[in-house]
């Protein structure tokens, strides 16, 4: 616990110091990054130790806030979520030190302040053992990331994104306050340890409001509208942290809430399953239609959150129906995917940042051929993309494998569960194939072929610090892919802290053998690749391969614009999913014998926002204008409102 306090203080101290370095970019970069990296190194130690030797440590400090206590508890579940926070903070800080260029006019000092505060707030969210402290840290997390989203404030899109983000954050916090006060009224205190399950429908109300609050932060569909706006707007290493770990605070909260509200009703499981299925399938379909690399990655995060929520739902349903092996495998798969998604999505966002940094745009139709201009970033991005498609032997596979295995093991259970398992299998496999389409499109359009524009042709490689941050995460992706059996212990202790000892035992019993075999198979695969590569070299026999142009079917003057672009690559699938996507196509009418210039464009707008939220917002705005007479801009009346409200409260309390 001492180490964690030291880590938190380091983060806060460096956040404070960077405020004063706003005029000196180099110094701000150094202090901010050094603070974040050292804090992560210090913080990783107690987190890993708690996972290996499960114990719960609590620290309570006096705090003169009513109903609150400054109590932090480090148990294996918190520790499991802290590990990706610290890994990603360190990698993103190293990367960020290279990403904020000193020659740019914009000073990075305040961005570092917000970044380090964000990391500290996330750590406190995972540690807090009191609802007031939790909500406070939750709000600090929201506000500091708001400042990072609005970093490029001169762009209208970033301002819009930040505004939506702020509103979504406030709505989520409101739902959480409601849920915590429901529990607090029952318990008479706001400490997590004092909370008991409310009786009857109140438990369901608490579950639903937790689901709303945490679902908003996690970005499940249909509560996701802020995510594809906010994540791409932030600087890329911040997007990595936001998509990698910040949305996982929603998952953490959901797991804690489920722990508080046990035993569960089967329909809770079904609710989570349906939300998960929807987010998983729609997230990846929306990702396929995007033109901007960072937006594509943001939608892919929604898909992965969907997979995690689906697994949680299977676990809840399995437990409620007494099918414990399914529950253990699903919960374990969810936790493993939390960690793995953090690593590969962080890497991918950093890769997208390298593209943005080097070519000045992340618009996929304007890129191409970057593999020659930034070979290292291209290699790391392809590796991350393979992990994101859950391809063996990288780390994305293990978590999904356990969820699949859980679903298969449930096939001989009661009909209710069989239906859930089959739905999960069908959607997971379709989403897996779609993810492959998404990431082959992204990697292909951005890095392969010939550059489509001057900007792409003149792209420059990223610096050593950015490469180092990405390499760190890529190494973590490979290592945690091959070392999946070593993750059984941490996952099972975290499961024990969340759902009880039974889940721990069920999980280590069910997952150990397959994961060990998987690692053996991964090693066999690596050996075969090595042998075949050597064999190829032998076949070549030292001959120099000839170089020529790409086969163009005899066409005399091919140009880079004739390549298959990102949207042509995904066109068959986006056409198939058009009823869901509602892409707007501007198809030119070509008439006459000598048609002039014509242009075609397509746009994938946010369907859920346009068709679900926009009509409601219009109604609400109409309603709000009826009360506009209250808002006249005279300060003295506003002060009167405040005084009157306070007096009313005082009278009510007396």
């Amino acid at each position, binding site marked *: 616990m001492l180490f964690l306090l030291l880590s938190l203080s380091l983060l806060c101290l460096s956040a404070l110091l960077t405020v004063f370095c706003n005029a000196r970019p180099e110094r701000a970069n150094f202090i901010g990054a050094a603070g974040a990296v050292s804090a992560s190194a210090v913080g990783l130690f107690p987190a890993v130790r708690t996972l290996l030797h499960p114990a719960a440590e609590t620290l309570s400090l006096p705090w003169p806030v009513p109903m609150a206590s400054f109590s932090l508890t480090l148990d294996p579940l918190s520790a499991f979520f802290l590990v990706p926070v610290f890994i990603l903070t360190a990698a993103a800080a190293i990367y960020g030190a290279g990403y904020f260029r000193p020659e740019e006019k914009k000073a990075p000092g305040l961005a570092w302040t917000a970044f380090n505060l964000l990391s500290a707030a996330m750590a406190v969210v995972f540690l807090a053992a009191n609802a007031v402290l939790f909500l406070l840290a939750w709000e600090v997390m929201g506000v500091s990331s708001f400042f990072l989203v609005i970093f490029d404030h001169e762009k209208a899109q970033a301002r819009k994104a930040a505004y939506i983000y702020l509103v979504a954050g406030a709505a989520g916090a409101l739902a959480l306050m409601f849920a915590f006060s429901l529990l607090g009224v029952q318990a008479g205190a706001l400490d997590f340890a004092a909370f008991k399950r409310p009786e009857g429908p109140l438990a369901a109300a608490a579950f639903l409001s937790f689901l709303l609050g945490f679902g908003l932060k996690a970005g499940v569909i249909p509560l996701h509208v802020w995510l594809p706006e906010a994540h791409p707007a932030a600087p890329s290493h911040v997007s990595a942290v936001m998509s990698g770990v910040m949305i996982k605070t929603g998952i953490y909260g959901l797991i804690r809430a489920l722990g508080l509200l046990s035993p569960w009703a089967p329909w809770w499981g079904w609710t989570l399953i349906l939300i998960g299925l929807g987010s998983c399938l729609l997230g990846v379909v929306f990702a396929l239609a995007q033109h901007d690399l960072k937006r594509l990655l943001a939608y892919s995060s929604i898909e992965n959150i969907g997979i995690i929520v689906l697994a949680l739902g299977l676990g809840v349903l399995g437990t409620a129906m007494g099918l414990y092996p399914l529950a253990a495998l699903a919960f374990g798969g969810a936790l493993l995917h939390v960690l793995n998604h953090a690593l590969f999505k962080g890497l991918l966002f950093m890769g997208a940042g390298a593209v943005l940094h080097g070519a000045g745009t992340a618009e996929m139709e304007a890129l191409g051929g970057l593999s020659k201009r930034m070979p290292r970033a291209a290699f790391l991005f392809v590796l991350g993309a393979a992990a994101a*498609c859950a391809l063996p032997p990288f780390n994305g596979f293990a978590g999904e494998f356990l969820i699949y*295995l859980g679903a298969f093991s449930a096939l001989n259970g009661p009909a209710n569960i069989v239906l859930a398992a089959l739905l999960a299998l069908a959607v997971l496999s379709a989403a*897996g*194939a779609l993810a*492959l389409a998404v990431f*082959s499109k992204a990697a292909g359009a951005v890095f392969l072929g010939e550059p489509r524009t001057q900007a792409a042709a003149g792209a420059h490689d990223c610096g050593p610090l950015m490469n180092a941050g990405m390499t760190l995460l890529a190494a973590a992706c490979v290592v945690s892919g091959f070392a999946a059996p070593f993750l059984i212990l941490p996952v099972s202790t975290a499961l024990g802290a969340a759902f009880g000892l039974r889940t721990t035992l069920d999980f280590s019993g069910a997952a150990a053998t397959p994961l060990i075999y998987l690692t053996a198979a991964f090693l066999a*695969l690596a050996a075969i690749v090595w042998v075949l590569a050597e064999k190829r070299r032998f076949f070549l026999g030292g001959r120099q391969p000839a170089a020529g142009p790409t*086969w163009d079917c005899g066409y005399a003057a091919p140009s880079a614009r004739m*390549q298959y672009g990102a949207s042509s690559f995904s066109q068959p699938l986006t056409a198939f999913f058009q009823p869901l996507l509602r892409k707007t196509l501007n198809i030119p009418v070509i008439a006459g014998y000598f048609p002039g210039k014509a242009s075609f464009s397509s746009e994938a707008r946010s369907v859920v926002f346009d068709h679900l939220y926009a009509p409601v917002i219009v109604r609400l705005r109409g309603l709000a204008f009826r009360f506009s007479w209250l808002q006249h801009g005279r300060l003295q009346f506003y002060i009167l409102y405040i005084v009157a409200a306070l007096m009313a409260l005082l009278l009510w309390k007396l």
Partner: protein
Amino acid sequence: MEIIKPLIQYLAVIILSPLLLGLINRVKAKFAGRRGQPLLQLYFDLYKLSYKTPVYSRTTTWLFRAGPVIGLSAILCALAALPFAGRPGFLAFDGDFIFLIYLLGLGRFFTVLAALDTGSSFEGMGASREVQFAVFSEPAFFLALAALSKATGKLSLSGMFLALEPASWQAAAPALLLLTAALFIILLAENSRVPVDDPNTHLELTMIHEVMVLDHSGPDLAYILYGAALKLWFFGALIASAVLPRHSGSWLYDGAAFLGMMAVIAAAIGTVESVMARLRMIKVQYLLMGALVFSILALLFQTGR
């Protein structure tokens, strides 16, 4: 002796796989009234290609060279987990088929990237179609295996096929028949056979798999052709194991029956190719959805039992 049996089986697979394509070509030639190419033509091709000097496009990078190596490695690794004549392969564990399907995905991912690496729009088209059809065939494959797993109560590929007995066919014939049909459609799609793709077509615009490898030459092309033969064996072996539930216990006898069944499947593919034309590109997804529906029906029959 028991120890080296899986090794002999594996060797048999990697040696005999190219023969399947020879058989298919022979059957097609018979239908067309031709004599056809030699049975061993693919072996000759592979030998010739291995010692040719490759030509690389100036647009390409390391991914173009890595694609064939990783593609062939993925399928070779998958074959190690495949049961042979009702006997488990090297790697048999709970959930091994999940690993196998994702291994095929690994091969597909790198083949597609290698195709996109050339910057040719023909290869882009092929890559686009390849990932599109996988979206329909992968769920069909998963659900077919789910039906098999439900019919046998086992969680590994070897376990499922070992638990499959003549009695299971008597009890669940409609379900097993449907899932065999689904697997056959998936075989045709995954291996780019008629009616999904025509391996003999001469027009780049209409190809799927062949167009993705247009630029590969020399040992790289040899790897790709060999990988395609192994993939055909992979899917054929699944079907052969499903329709050959009787195991005598004698390794030689079972092995011979299994190989005979593989020849029958090759003949079936050749027959399909000879008697029907390929579908229009936009109709392929309906064929694959047919496979998905077959799998779901098989599951329904299993659940209803």
